[in-house]
């Protein structure tokens, strides 16, 4: 690590400020509630912003104008609350004439891409795995180190990226760009097992059963012998991190988002 003196401070561009200067950025980075408030996922947000900065992307965030996408409310049955959130967000996004959105959250990715159009929000929405895969393909991310060369990585498919919107390969191609050994769980891609947090489960007690879903999934990941569980979703991250703790594997196993792995490999 270079010392702080060599570091460059990032001022994250905010839409309202850019609009005041008459600038319309190419991309809107949708941070999402977890990306803004969950302590673990805030780190992912920061690493992704580093990547955006490194790539010199013309982007902005909504900042305090962003509000929850409504994904949780909708899937927990509160359609009224979902639509209030959606319509308010759409009004703001349309006000800035946003065309392209990138987000680290597969839930918001699905909601913005598949559900906002019916309510008047039409955008080209990218998940950060697709965005990063595209930049890697274009050769824009040079200088990836061997930092993880001795590590074994297993990818856990987020339901709303995979089954939800059909994207299985983008996150894998990001991992493929990082020198390391890759393994798969038996239940992968469209067969992937949920982390257990979707559909509002994140915010409620689990129903009675033999075990919690996140434990079942973490056990499967541990069985691959991987050193790292790579995820691409804030909910999956919470669940897998908890699972690693629960199984007392913290010494041996880590949980990273694909953006973190890329950013760390680049030494950003």
């Amino acid at each position, binding site marked *: 690590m*270079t010392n*702080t003196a060599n*570091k*460059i401070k*990032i001022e*994250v561009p*905010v839409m309202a400020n850019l609009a005041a200067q008459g600038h319309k950025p190419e991309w809107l980075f949708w*941070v999402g*509630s977890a990306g*803004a*408030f969950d302590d673990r996922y805030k780190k992912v*947000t*920061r690493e992704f912003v580093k990547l955006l900065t*490194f790539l010199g992307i013309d982007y902005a965030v909504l*900042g*305090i104008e962003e*509000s929850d996408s409504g994904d*949780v*409310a*909708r*899937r*927990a*049955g*509160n359609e*009224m*609350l979902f*639509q*209030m959130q959606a*319509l308010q967000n759409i009004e703001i996004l349309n006000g800035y004439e946003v065309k392209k959105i990138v987000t680290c959250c597969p839930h918001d990715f*699905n909601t913005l891409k*598949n559900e906002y159009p*019916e309510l008047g929000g039409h955008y080209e929405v990218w998940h950060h795995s697709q965005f990063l895969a595209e930049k890697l393909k274009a050769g*824009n991310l*040079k200088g990836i180190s061997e930092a993880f060369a001795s590590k074994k990585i297993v990818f856990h498919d987020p*339901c*709303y990226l995979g*089954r*939800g919107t059909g994207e299985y390969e983008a996150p894998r191609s990001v991992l493929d760009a990082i020198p390391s050994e890759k393994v798969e769980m038996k239940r992968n891609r*469209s*067969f992937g*097992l*949920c982390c*257990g*947090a*979707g*559909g*509002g489960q994140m*915010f*409620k*007690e*689990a*129903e009675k*059963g*033999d*075990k*919690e*879903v996140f434990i*079942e999934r973490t056990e499967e990941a541990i069985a691959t012998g991987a050193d790292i569980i790579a995820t691409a979703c804030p909910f999956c991250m919470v669940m897998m991190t908890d699972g690693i703790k629960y199984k007392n594997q913290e010494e041996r196993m880590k949980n990273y988002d694909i953006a973190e792995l890329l950013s760390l490999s680049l*030494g*950003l």
Partner: protein
Amino acid sequence: MTAQILFALSLLITLAVFAFTMRRIFFNFRYTKKKKLTDYPARIRETFKVAIAQQKIFRHPVMGFVHALVFWGFMVILFGSIEMVVDGLFGTERSFAVLGWFYDFLMATGDVFAAIIAISILIFMFRRIFLHVKRFYGPEMKPVSKADANLTLSFILLLMLSLLGMNAFYLLEMHNTGQSFEGVFPVSQSLADLFVGMSDKGIIFWHHFNWWFHILLIFIFANVLPYSKHFHVFMSVPNVLVSRIEPLGKVDNMDSITKEVKLMLDPAAPMDAGGEETVEKFGVSDANDINWVNYMNALSCTECGRCTAVCPANITGKLLSPRKIVMDVRARMKEKGAGLMKEGAAFDDGKSLIGDYISEEELWACTMCNACAQECPININQPSLILDMRRYLVLEQSKAPSGLNTAFTNIENNGAPWQYSPEDRMNWADELFINKQA
């Protein structure tokens, strides 16, 4: 002539019983909600992929292949069954032979498929009886479901054996009477060799016996199916055609709510011309709140349990089983439909789908991961049913688990499911540094 009259009579009875059954089942569609279908070209493509090419059943490659063989075999053999109906009515024999090489081709394929299906059915039976396939069990799998399956398999096995018998003795009869035969029968030809020494009378008897046995069994089979989970045989292909083709992650919008929310956000928004509408119930609490596609789904389910086998809640021992949700919808519709038919729309038996069939505990155990919908070989969408019932609980009854109620309040007040001030939404960006720039 007597044979023709007998045949016409059997056909008439078959059709009458079938019509009676269909009336009972399809009557219930009028108590389902509307749902508009769009994008027919995509639906037709989906039907070719999922139904005709059996794409999703191959997610279990071995048993999937065996099922696909049975399905494709049925499609080919159906041609011969239609010919038998024509022959039976008009007293002809192998009347479709006028089609020439095409007839030969279909007969040969059907003959080979009859043997393949018979073997497949034996494999299915062996698996059901001797191997403990986990997904064939579960609290919702009552003895009647098992009996259903074994009965249907027996029916199909007998149908195939009689078809082969019919072909074999036909060949022998033609040979013995010095006539040339129509069609090509690779399997039955070798089967016929086994009976070469049989008397002419015996051969004629067994030819007719197999012919009648086969067609009458089809007539009975067709009328038994609608009363069993194997109504699947009729309903699955049309079900795929009308099934959800949107991305699995997408949830159907509630337009009735959109109107209300728009009015709340902007009281000056123009009301729809036409003014007052009927007060609508939000979500699903009983069978007649579902839409007609949900009902098609329920009628088509053959209880294979692939959905339940991949359900994270079920795998970890929770009560939820997506298969049970679909079966409950069908059972409740049958129960309530009988009353609705008698007493009209006002019928109320004091029961409902939620509570009497499906518990709230089951509904709240779902992670909306869509593994069940992904797995269903005929595109049944279980999550949309579960969500519609959650919608009823939340929007009509305010009965969400407490954790979710807290999340709702937080989203409403803070714009996030956690209790943070919206003013802090950019705090993640504080003191953010990068080591290098490209």
